[in-house]
């Protein structure tokens, strides 16, 4: 597709349930980012991939969060044993790198009940 695609758009999970969020970046984009955004706030960095290599995972809030990009294209953010504080919008962005700006998907709104 022409843009970054994320699925699902909305996810409701019961506390303790595992979830997997998918990101299809723009074809050819080397860099891929995951961000977490609380309502009315700016996105907060979670993790960064350059091709298939996860170069930075310093923003992941706990070891319940795991991200992968095995073939350097599609990425999955997995959250194990979800907690209510995990409720947020999870944004994926891809970029050619450098100063060329990032292109964001529509996000996945996760609600943990």
């Amino acid at each position, binding site marked *: 597709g022409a843009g970054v695609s994320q699925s699902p758009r909305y996810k409701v999970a019961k506390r303790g349930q595992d979830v997997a969020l998918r990101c299809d970046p723009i074809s050819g984009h080397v860099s891929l980012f995951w961000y977490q955004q609380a309502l*009315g706030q700016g996105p907060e960095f979670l993790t960064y991939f350059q091709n298939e290599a996860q170069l930075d995972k310093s923003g992941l809030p706990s070891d319940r969060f795991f991200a992968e990009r095995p073939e350097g294209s599609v990425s999955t953010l997995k959250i194990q044993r979800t907690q209510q504080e995990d409720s947020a919008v999870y944004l994926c962005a891809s970029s050619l790198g450098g100063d060329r700006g990032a292109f964001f998907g529509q996000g996945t709104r996760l609600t943990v009940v």
Partner: protein
Amino acid sequence: TQLLEQSPQFLSIQEGENLTVYCNSSSVFSSLQWYRQEPGEGPVLLVTVVTGGEVKKLKRLTFQFGDARKDSSLHITAAQPGDTGLYLCAAPLVGDYKLSFGAGTTVTVRA
């Protein structure tokens, strides 16, 4: 502490008025980007500024990068209801790759 401080946090104006949003930091950036985000959507890149003192215009939007590359402003002339949204500035630290975002300015333009 936010790396990028945006002000004001909220701005509500009448259609036809002008507005300015500020993005400030004590750090130097190699570049700075402005995004606009509508409810239920991801941020959309508006502009990237790279050179200190640079001014870029995008129709009724004017973006300025400070001479020292520590701050930026976004000015909207004759605002329209379609300009309503969350305006975010973002920048990578020199030598870094990940974007740090400000908390955003929520702009509401009333018809």
